[in-house]
């Protein structure tokens, strides 16, 4: 592919410099990967970090995003967005699905998406093989896309200052830049992914390098975006304002731009959402390489944020390119590169090229490693194992063979990508090619999602669904892509197969009105889901399917894998160790089994017993290296197994699920028990508190009763023992005895009264009463007290007040109590007590004010407690029974009223009670 260029030679954009920069960059990536692997070996993982995890997911953004989004935006405006909306929605809303995939994959040592599907449907080698074939065929166009993008960006940049590369599609393979790029990438991928002689599923160094690449491509794209938006133009507003001024561009800024229908938006969003889950490379970085489930928490916002950032400048670059290059025929897919080139920003152009290289290498490395693992584990190994020569108990180490197979697969896959590029690459824009791959990968959705949530899915159903969906995909998208590039007759697309109208690949069975991708998605998923469900329903799952189904469907519920419970037979431990050694290498096998022995408190690996647990352990070790289906076959080859019937499997699973539900039940019970204990404790506390209150009450009552009894007994004994007591003393003592007896009687009555009111046994005689009359009668009843102490009593009673419903005697008891208290505290001689009755805010109030010492603020509530008067309870000596105010308050509250005190020390006290009028007034008016 020759690049033509006129004018002066650039000091920067020369092949040696471009190649040199690329080589330095790739070397840097390799160094990072090497460091990551080394740290992993030392047990100090660099990727045990949620940010690196989220960045590695950004391998989703390939050259398609890097160059193609701008190309698509130049045609459809915001039509490039669904490809990022889908993943954003899936990450934001589908965390539970990802979590289930990750947990299932870890529990079963899943190495790839083919392994996942094969394992779910009874560790079926056939299914694993089919998924691999679909993945390889489906992904090849996508790899071709990366090759095309890197090649054309290289041709462009070394052709500087020309803005178009002259492409000769028929040049010999060996002279084709793309071919060499494919080989370089293959070599690089081999170095990355299959450097070690250990064939496990994890590649820490690769993940670290991919995370770095994600940063580089974001920075490079951001740099060109800033340059275009703020260098060539005057910010976002300026770019859009100028585009709006241009009739042809204005439509691009509208959401409905490019005549894209709602169906297209929906199907592209849906498709991209499936792609983020089921693309082999996404499955690799998201599921297989996941270090900790907790990392998902950051990824679900950081990855969408990354997508937002990398899309920020797409429209300005697209519009800027369209305006700058109007009429010059510059390919919109190259705007990212050609805009800085046209502005003589050579270093920026070089950075952009490296960013694009970054996007491509990231994708190619992860994708081909994922695919090569699938090809090796699910396609080649099963075939080789079927060849008896290898399946025999050969002593030699097969781990080297595994690596050779994977390396071979990498080369083949990249060459297939090149082949597709040669055959069909020129017919489509970057995005078009990528969407073909997305549609292929979408075919995994029914078997994957169905497998994780529906126990009824069977191997045959999955096979039928995948085959049907894949066939429709090939017919409606893959073959037409060949046809468009002239490799197949054009009549295939225009007239249909054999000229049959109904078989036109883009209007299958007469379905029109959809774009190619939506059309394919509709028919392929309809066929896929239909076949999957219909065939699955045709027969019940087998024992193997049922046992796997349980592990996948209940992945989030099971705490202990039931795997080993589902194996019965006999095996020899030494043979198992040797078998694992053949695939992992003897040293790694020894280490792994030694760890197992330590966990089970067995001193020596030689003493291991080949029970179901050990067999299961060996199988899971193998699964990490060669996939679950092959691992199953290998273990079966050395162990004498007794196949379990479906009934037995069901029994075991039932037992497991019964155990689970039993333990859930236990958990629930113990929670209930805890709750009950808590309630009992609280109740006990309340009882203790009540007990304490009762004790206090009893102590108080006892004290109150003992005090008058003390005087009565002492004087009685004095009078009895000493008949010669002076008459004067005798009379004095007798009157003390009488008054103390009265005090005692009063006390007993009030205690009983209080108890009756509190227990609700008091009798209430409720009638219409006149509160003014009650106050007057109470004043009359206590007038002797006032006279005795020479205290003035003033009544100030409002007239014309409505009647209330209440108990006359009880209310009198309240007023008398307040009056007695007032007179008790009013100073003798100068004492004054003022009683008011008035109406306020829908209630009647009575206030009794004295000019006594007043009540300290802190005592104003205490005095309403039983046996409490102002001051410290230990030092205060009750001057009454200590029950008058508590009883009065109970009475007032019985009639929905309130009783409180207002007082300033030294300025007397006012006791006020209020009784509501509402109910009473209504009756008055009636």
């Amino acid at each position: 592919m020759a690049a033509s260029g006129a004018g002066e030679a650039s000091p920067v954009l020369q092949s040696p410099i471009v190649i040199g920069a690329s080589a330095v960059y790739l070397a840097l990536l390799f160094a990072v990967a090497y460091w990551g692997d080394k740290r992993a070996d030392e047990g100090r993982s660099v990727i045990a970090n949620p940010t690196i995890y989220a960045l590695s997911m950004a391998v989703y953004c390939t050259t398609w995003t890097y160059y193609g989004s701008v190309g698509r935006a130049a045609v459809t405006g915001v039509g490039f967005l669904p490809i990022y909306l889908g993943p954003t929605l899936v990450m934001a809303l589908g965390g539970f699905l990802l979590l289930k995939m990750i947990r299932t994959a870890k529990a079963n040592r899943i190495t790839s998406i083919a392994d996942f599907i094969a394992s779910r449907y009874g560790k079926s080698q056939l299914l694993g093989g089919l998924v691999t074939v679909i993945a390889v065929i489906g992904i090849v166009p996508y790899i071709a896309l990366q090759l095309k993008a890197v090649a054309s960006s290289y041709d462009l940049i070394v052709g500087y200052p020309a803005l178009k590369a002259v492409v000769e599609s028929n040049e010999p393979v060996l002279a084709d830049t793309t071919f060499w790029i494919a080989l370089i990438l293959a070599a690089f991928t081999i170095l990355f992914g299959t450097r070690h002689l250990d064939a496990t599923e994890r590649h820490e160094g690769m993940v670290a390098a991919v995370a770095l690449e994600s940063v580089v491509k974001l920075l490079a794209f951001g740099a060109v975006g800033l340059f275009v938006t703020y260098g060539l133009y005057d910010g976002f507003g300026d770019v859009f304002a100028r585009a709006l001024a241009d009739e042809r561009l204005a439509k691009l800024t509208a959401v409905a731009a490019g005549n894209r229908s709602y169906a297209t938006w929906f199907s592209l969003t849906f498709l991209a959402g499936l792609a983020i889950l089921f693309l082999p490379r996404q499955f690799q970085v998201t599921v297989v390489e996941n270090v900790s489930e907790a990392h998902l928490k950051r990824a679900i916002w950081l990855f969408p944020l990354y997508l937002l950032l990398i899309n920020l400048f797409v429209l300005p670059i697209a519009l800027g390119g369209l305006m700058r290059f109007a009429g010059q025929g510059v390919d919109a897919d190259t705007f990212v590169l050609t805009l800085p080139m046209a502005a003589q920003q050579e270093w920026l152009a070089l950075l952009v090229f490296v960013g694009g290289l970054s996007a491509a290498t990231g994708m190619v490395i992860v994708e081909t490693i994922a695919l090569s693992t699938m090809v090796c584990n699910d396609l080649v190994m099963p075939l080789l194992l079927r060849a008896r020569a290898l399946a025999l108990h050969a002593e030699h180490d097969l781990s080297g063979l595994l690596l050779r197979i994977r390396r071979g697969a990498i080369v083949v896959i990249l060459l297939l990508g090149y082949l597709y590029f040669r055959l069909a690459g020129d017919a489509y824009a970057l995005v078009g090619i990528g969407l073909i791959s997305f549609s292929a990968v979408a075919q995994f959705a029914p078997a994957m999602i169905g497998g994780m949530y529906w126990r009824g899915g069977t191997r045959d159903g999955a096979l039928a669904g995948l085959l049907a969906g894949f066939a429709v995909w090939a017919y409606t998208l893959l073959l037409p892509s060949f046809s468009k590039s002239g490799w197949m007759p054009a009549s295939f697309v225009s007239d249909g197969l054999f000229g049959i109208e109904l078989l036109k690949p883009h209007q299958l069975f007469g379905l029109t009105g959809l774009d190619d991708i939506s059309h394919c998605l509709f028919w392929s998923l309809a066929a896929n889901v239909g076949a999957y469900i219909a065939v699955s329903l045709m027969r019940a799952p087998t024992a193997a399917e049922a046992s796997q189904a349980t592990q996948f469907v209940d992945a989030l519920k099971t705490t202990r894998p039931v795997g080993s419970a589902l194996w019965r037979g006999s095996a020899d431990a030494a043979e198992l160790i040797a078998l694992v050694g053949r695939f992992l290498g003897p040293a790694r096998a020894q280490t792994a089994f030694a760890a197992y022995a330590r966990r089970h408190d067995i001193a020596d690996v030689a003493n291991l017993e080949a029970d179901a647990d050990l067999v299961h352990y060996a199988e899971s070790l193998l699964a990490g290296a060669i996939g679950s289906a092959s691992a199953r076959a290998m273990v079966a080859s050395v162990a004498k197994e007794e196949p379990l019937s479906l009934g037995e499997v069901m029994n075991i699973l039932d037992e497991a699920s019964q155990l689970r539900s039993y333990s859930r039940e236990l958990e629930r019970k113990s929670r209930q028990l805890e709750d009950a204990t808590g309630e009992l404790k609280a109740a006990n506390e309340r009882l203790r508190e009540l007990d304490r209150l009762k004790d206090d009450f009893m102590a108080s009552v006892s004290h109150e009763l003992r005090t008058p009894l003390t005087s009565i007994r002492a004087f009685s004994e004095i009078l009895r023992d000493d008949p010669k007591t002076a008459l004067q003393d005798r009379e004095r003592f007798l009157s003390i005895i009488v008054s103390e007896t009265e005090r005692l009687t009063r006390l007993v009555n009030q205690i009983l009264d209080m108890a009756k009111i509190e227990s609700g046994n008091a009798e209430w005689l409720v009638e219409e009463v006149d509160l003014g009359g009650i106050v007057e009668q109470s004043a009359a009843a206590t007038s002797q007290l006032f006279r005795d102490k020479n205290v003035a009593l003033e009544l100030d009673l409002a007239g014309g007040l409505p009647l209330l419903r209440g108990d006359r005697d009880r209310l009198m008891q309240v007023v008398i109590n307040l009056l007695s208290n007032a007179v008790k505290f009013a100073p003798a001689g100068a004492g004054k007590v003022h009683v008011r009755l008035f109406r306020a805010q829908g209630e009647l109030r009575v206030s009794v004010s004295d000019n006594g010492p007043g009540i300290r603020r802190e005592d104003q509530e205490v005095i309403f407690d039983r046996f409490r008067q102002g001051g410290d309870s230990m030092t205060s000596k009750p001057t009454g029974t200590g029950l008058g105010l508590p009883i009065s308050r109970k009475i007032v509250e019985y009639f929905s009223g309130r009783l409180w005190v207002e007082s300033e020390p030294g300025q007397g006290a006012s006791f006020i009670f209020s009784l509501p009028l509402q109910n009473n007034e209504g009756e008055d008016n009636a």
Partner: protein
Amino acid sequence: MSKKVLIADDEQNIVISVEFLMRREGFEVSVAHDGEAALERIRADKPDLVLLDVMMPKKNGFDVCQEVRADPAYAGTRILMLTARGRDTEVAKGLALGADGYMTKPFSTKDLVDKVRELLG
């Protein structure tokens, strides 16, 4: 010289009865109606015996007892607590604070007189 007895109680009728009994026994009697007054009288009169109520205004009997016992000058002063709070823990508390005896109200006058004689004898 007759012994001096201080009666500290806020219940007037009880004071009258105990005062009558003490005078009949020939003791010199003084009276206090609250805890602070009791302490003043103890310092002023240096009584040989204090009949001390627990629940008094201003300062309770336990505190009075504690203060008296904290001062070695009154080491010879006998203290008999008289109280209506008759729980065992309170008896123990009173004795722990250095009271020489404890009587629960209502008490027998004979017991009281015997106890006073014993303490002053």
